[in-house]
């Protein structure tokens, strides 16, 4: 049962072939069985999951008509506020914090009858590409437990690949949904910025953070996308427009017909620094798409080369401000409050003890970049680069419908192999970051193996053209197939 797709499970539950409680229990059992080795979860909410499942069953008993994902288990990245359920963002500074409210996407998932089984591991405050910066220890890639599952949403991706849940929620600031999807052989979509509400997503970089759906198939991803997307009055940056019909688009793509679709290859991402196996799997897939009728052209996006440095100024700048609220005064960890120390000392000691090194590194970089006298040279300049990148995308989308690239230059690397050099770690997001700076949607879908490890294929589309991205992703899936990891 645990290997079924979300769509199939939802259909069986609706048809009363299996109860939501049985489905939840099967996944909870799987978590008990394998999560000691995978460590996808920071918190398993068995009680909450069974309660939610019973409610779904009760509604079905009464003959209520529920959505296609009612009763389907989901794993939620620990950066999403869940009412009454611990939410840490992978940080010691929030250890034990139980939000008094649900994130908007969480409320929407509850309304749709999704059953949350637990909160997944992540790099602290979503800063990282391997989960090795989680304050609670890394997650392990189900394809090879000595390797990273990607990051920051490695827990969500690992949970999918380990069949601990058929659906998961991630958040993508520079690739945190797509890169874990790529290295675990699963699907992860970053919707258009503003297409999914950020209300209740613990902010890392407000102008980039985007919550999105993760699953093992494109169609499941699209179904979850439909549940969580749409305008939210609680998020001022949320787009007040109807959600594109991504499920229909995925169905269309799955027919294997891309006639009339123009695909752009980004010249600047033509493989320098990428593993040969990754480039080979990518090129084979592009070749297969042309056989489905797609027209493939090369596109130049010259400013993409500056995306990484611009990102590493904008994201830390915003994070230096967003993370200021973690001071021990109102919630979370408090250190040094012995009744004698000053408030300033307590705030300072709390932050010293509560944040990990990568978080501190970025807070310091961001604080510096926003400082008077440096603002124009760093933050201001990075914003200009951002505008140029957006123009590159706009120009490209005048010529093609979507852009494609490998999701990440390399397959899952060995745990510990890149932690000593932040730049090597940052390179994991080389191909994913431009989209975040632009704001459009992008998805990673498996496209084969390189030396036995999954390779991800990235499809990028214009803002609010999420449906176009799903169509091409489903076509990729129709030629590359889904990947099955070795048994744990």
């Amino acid at each position, binding site marked *: 049962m645990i290997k079924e797709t979300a769509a199939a499970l939802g259909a069986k539950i609706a048809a009363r072939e299996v109860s939501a409680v049985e489905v939840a229990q099967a996944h909870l059992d799987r978590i008990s069985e394998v999560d000691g080795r995978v460590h996808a979860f920071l918190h398993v909410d068995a009680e909450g999951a069974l309660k939610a499942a019973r409610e779904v069953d009760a509604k079905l008993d009464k003959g209520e008509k529920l959505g296609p994902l009612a009763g389907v288990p989901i794993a939620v990245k620990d950066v999403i506020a869940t009412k009454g359920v611990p939410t840490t963002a992978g940080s010691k500074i929030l250890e034990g914090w139980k939000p008094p409210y649900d994130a908007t996407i969480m409320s929407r998932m509850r309304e749709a009858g999704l059953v949350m089984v637990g909160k997944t591991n992540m790099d602290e405050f979503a800063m990282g590409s391997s989960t090795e910066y989680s304050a609670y220890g890394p997650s392990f890639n189900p394809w090879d437990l000595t390797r990273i599952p990607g990051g920051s949403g490695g827990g969500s991706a690992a949970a999918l690949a380990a069949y601990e849940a058929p659906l998961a929620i991630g958040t993508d600031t520079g690739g945190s949904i797509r890169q874990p999807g790529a290295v675990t052989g699963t699907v992860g979509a970053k919707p258009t910025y503003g297409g999914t509400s950020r209300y209740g997503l613990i*902010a890392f970089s*407000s102008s980039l953070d985007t919550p999105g759906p993760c699953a093992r198939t494109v169609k499941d991803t699209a179904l979850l996308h439909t549940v969580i997307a749409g305008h939210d009055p609680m998020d001022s940056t949320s787009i007040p427009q109807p959600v594109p019909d991504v499920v229909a688009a995925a169905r269309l793509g799955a027919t294997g017909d891309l006639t009339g679709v123009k695909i752009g290859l980004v010249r600047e991402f033509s493989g320098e620094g990428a593993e040969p196996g990754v480039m080979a799997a990518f090129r084979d897939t592009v070749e297969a798409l042309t056989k489905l009728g797609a027209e493939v052209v090369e596109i130049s996006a010259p400013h993409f080369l500056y995306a990484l440095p611009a990102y590493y100024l904008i994201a830390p700048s915003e994070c*230096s401000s967003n993370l200021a609220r973690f001071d021990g005064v109102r919630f979370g960890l408090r250190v040094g409050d012995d009744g004698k120390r000053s408030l300033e000392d307590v705030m300072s000691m709390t932050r010293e003890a509560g944040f990990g090194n990568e978080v501190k590194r970025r807070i310091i970089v961001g604080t510096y970049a*926003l400082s008077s006298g440096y603002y124009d040279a760093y933050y201001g300049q990075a914003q200009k680069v951002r505008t140029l990148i957006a123009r590159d995308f706009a120009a490209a989308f005048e010529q093609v419908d979507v852009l494609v690239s490998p999701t990440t230059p390399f397959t899952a690397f060995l745990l510990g192999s890149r932690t000593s050099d932040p730049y090597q770690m940052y390179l994991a997001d080389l191909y994913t970051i431009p989209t975040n700076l632009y704001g459009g949607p992008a998805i990673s879908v498996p496209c084969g193996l390189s030396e036995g490890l999954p390779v991800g294929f990235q499809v990028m589309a214009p803002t609010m053209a999420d449906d176009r991205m799903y169509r091409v992703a489903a076509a990729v899936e129709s030629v590359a197939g889904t990947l099955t990891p070795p048994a744990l």
Partner: protein
Amino acid sequence: MSITALSFDDAIGRYEPVIGLETHVELGTQTKMFCGCPTVFGADPNTQICPVCLGLPGSLPVANKAAIEATIRIGLALNCSIAQWCRFARKNYFYPDMPKNYQISQYDEPLCVDGYLDVTVNGEIVRVEIERVHLEEDTGKTLHVGGATGRIHGATESLVDYNRAGIPLVEIVTKPVVGTGRMAPEVAKAYVAELRDVIRTLGVSDVRMEQGSMRCDVNTSLNLPGEEWGTRTETKNVNSLRSVERAVRTEIVRQSNVLSGGGHITQETRHFHEDTGETTSGRSKETATDYRYFPEPDLVPLAPDAAWVQELKAALPELPRVHRARLQKDWGLSDLDMQSILNAGAVELIEQTIAAGTNAETARKWWLGELSRKANETGVDLAAVGATPKQVAELQSLVDSGKLTDKLARQVLEGVLNGEGDPAAIMAARGIEVVSDTGALTAAIDEAIAANPEVAEKIRGGNQAAAGVLIGAVMKTTKGQADAKTVRELVLQRLS
């Protein structure tokens, strides 16, 4: 410090003051700036809070349209240009009463810029130029327990009330006001008073300085004639109109003494003390905090629609200055009379008394006469003297209808000021009435004539001046409630 202390006159004789005012006004919107929490003043601590105004992880702000509208209306009333596009910005600094450790404010893109407000001081119109009007969120309130100063340093315990956190706050900043010389303190006061009246007229805030819904920071510097502006200080905690004037005066005198003694002025924040009228040094701005402003990424830019702004402009109420000019004309007053009404703070009171049915001249007489005297005696504002415009109008209508004499009216007013109720009720309670019933009067007169036969004889003989004795006797019998003029007429009639 010089040993021969300079007076204000000495200071003005030697230096030219430059002043500037930053005024914060809490808007009277139903809900807070970025969340739906209520804004009622005086609720129990931490009862008007939610994830947004507490800055809980994951929460996001959404701008309050009513607050934006109110700010634009203030800007329009101050003759500002309204930005076609602007953004909120984050002002980053750590302080426990700031839930997010940054304040959502505006920085280099304020909503309103380049306006002015004309104020009248000693019959002279002074134009105070407005640099900007912007919108931001208020902070919570911290109470530091223990420690000597009540400040954060040395406190053993700090209590924070976040009810105020997130209440919309409008900041109005003037350009430097130069060339006002000895009038500087009065210009500062007149500006704040005029600003308060404008905002009250707009109905967007209750602008009560004593409750903190209007707060003023006063910048002051001195320079020698012809030289560059001096280093300025920023005086905070200036919580009444009177204090605004005193704070400027105090700083002028203090700075002139430092400068003439060969010292230099430190750029710093100073605290004004209402009790002594002195200012003391606060934190130095020489090591200024770097607020690391940057555009607020959680909020979309503001782009007020030009047609909407035009609508708001067209719908502005008559502003105090225009309103006062019209009243002066309607009431037929000289500039001097109008000025004395303004100085007494009686414009609205007179206006409301007139609205309740009294004519302009009589309304003015009550408020500038008897009631002003009473207010001065007890040392309160005229508006707080204890009588309402409605009560004054009622009193006057009782006089006009002959139910009260002027003398009795003053007795009734006494009762009103004592809080005994409305005039008619006081008359009933105290048994005050004009004895106009001729039957009762005739009996009293007959009694007086019978008791004073020689006087009656004199009057019959044509000596009308002698009537005073009989009138006095009648007034005594009627306990002063008869109208003396009527009594006189009746006596003469009876003895003719």
